[in-house]
């Protein structure tokens, strides 16, 4: 019984933690972008402008929730829910502390990849159901981009799984006790990072939204809480991917013992989230064909090379045993 209560408490903490982190990202992103553009950003509402999140929430909840008459209503309503569900489901497998996780899945890594693939459906369905050309263009771009980068997302993690010898995220973290995987799997880290940028549709790869060309891409027709769901989904995706990078490459909750493991995990994740914002502040959007050719002509060979070298080195160390 106490185990059930404990599990429920952890589930609630992780769920609301993820949602709060995603909402907080609104503030973090705007303040950080401002810092890097020599501005202040929102600093009026509440201390340091933190209540801006609350104000934005109130605003987006009180907007008219409009469904276009030409839209495919059922799918239109479902699409934003799908992205939130898939992203939040992925948080299930993250080992936040040594004994602090929702589910100890032995296929955690695969579960994460599966869920992030499912997320594509949300975008494509949103683009399709909106029944408008900008949405459809955004949806098609998202489909092509996210499906191709899914490949590198998966391939870059194979090296990690090979060294750790497990798909279980807890064991992957434990395997990094001596050396974080960011050193032996440096190439994997870079590729995973780039692929995760494309997965979360962040700036150098934000073609699906591309404000300057496609109005707002796949969520052009969305308003109010559904629009908010897409944004929370995107921000939660950033937090998720940062947490995943922390887990796979930066030793998860491992760290010197003067801070509790939970804090180590959160600090690393927060720093990685900041790098996402930094990239958004620094890099312009790629052209669509550049995005695809970069993926297939540069990242794929690098991925495979990384796999071969990792496999070879592992074979040499373990002596084929």
């Amino acid at each position, binding site marked *: 019984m106490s185990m059930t209560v404990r599990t429920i408490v952890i589930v609630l903490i992780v769920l609301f933690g993820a949602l709060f982190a995603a909402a907080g990202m609104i503030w973090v992103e705007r303040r950080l972008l*401002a*810092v*890097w*553009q*020599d*501005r*202040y950003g929102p600093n009026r509402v509440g201390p340091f402008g933190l209540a801006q999140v609350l104000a934005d929430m109130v605003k987006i909840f009180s907007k008219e929730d409009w469904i276009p008459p030409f839209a495919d209503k059922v799918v239109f309503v479902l699409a934003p829910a799908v992205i939130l569900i898939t992203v939040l489901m992925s948080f299930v497998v993250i080992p936040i502390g040594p004994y602090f996780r929702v589910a100890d899945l032995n296929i955690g890594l695969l579960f994460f990849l599966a869920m992030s693939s499912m997320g594509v459906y949300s975008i494509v369905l949103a683009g399709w159901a909106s029944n408008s050309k900008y949405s459809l263009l955004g949806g098609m771009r998202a489909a092509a981009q996210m499906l191709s980068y899914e490949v590198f997302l998966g391939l870059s993690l194979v090296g990690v799984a090979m060294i750790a010898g497990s798909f279980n995220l807890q064991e992957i973290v434990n395997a990094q006790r001596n050396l974080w995987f960011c050193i032996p799997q440096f190439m994997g880290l870079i590729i995973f990072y780039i692929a995760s940028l494309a997965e979360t549709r962040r700036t150098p790869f934000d073609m699906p939204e591309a404000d300057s060309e496609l109005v707002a891409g796949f969520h052009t027709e969305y308003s109010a809480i559904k629009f908010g769901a897409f944004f929370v989904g995107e921000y939660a995706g950033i937090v998720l991917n940062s947490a995943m990078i922390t887990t796979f490459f930066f030793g998860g909750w491992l760290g010197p013992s003067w801070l509790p493991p939970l804090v180590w995990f959160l600090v690393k994740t927060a720093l990685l989230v900041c790098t996402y914002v*930094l*990239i958004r*502040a*620094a*890099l312009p959007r790629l052209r669509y064909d550049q995005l695809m050719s970069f993926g297939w002509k540069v990242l794929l060979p690098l991925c495979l090379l990384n796999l071969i070298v990792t496999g070879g080195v592992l074979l040499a160390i373990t002596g084929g045993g």
Partner: protein
Amino acid sequence: MLNLVRGIWLVFLHLFHRPETIQYPEERPYMPPRFRGRIVLTRDPDGKERCVACYLCSVACPVDCIALQATQDEHGRRYPAFFRINFSRCIFCGFCEEACPTYAIQLTPDFEMCEYHRESMVYEKEDLLISGPGKHPDYNFYRVAGLAIGGKDKGEAEHEAPPVDLHGLMP
């Protein structure tokens, strides 16, 4: 590829820069003296109003926001009976200031003139007239141009030269 990394690094360095923002209501920006803001009517160093109601500002105004009515006092000195600027139309171009022959109408660096009602944007003469001489503290139009008073025309008083005949050819 290296360029991208360098770009990211340069953006990161802005973490250590001061924000350019002037946090307006608390911090005040520097307003140059020639800034074209709220329009005022100035007075002579003697304290009399400078405006001679020549209508030049009203004519020069591209949006026709200046309205005035000329009248005369007992000495024949012209002054505006009313002087009205509709600031909801004014584009702060400064043409009125350039047109004014007496430096009466001037633009000031004050720009905080928001109102809740449009009617409040219409400024009457008593709102426009200030007590000082503005940007030209020593200039007195009638010291330069001369002034006819009751019974004596320009140049007929003691220690006065007759005014230059503007239509004559000789220097």
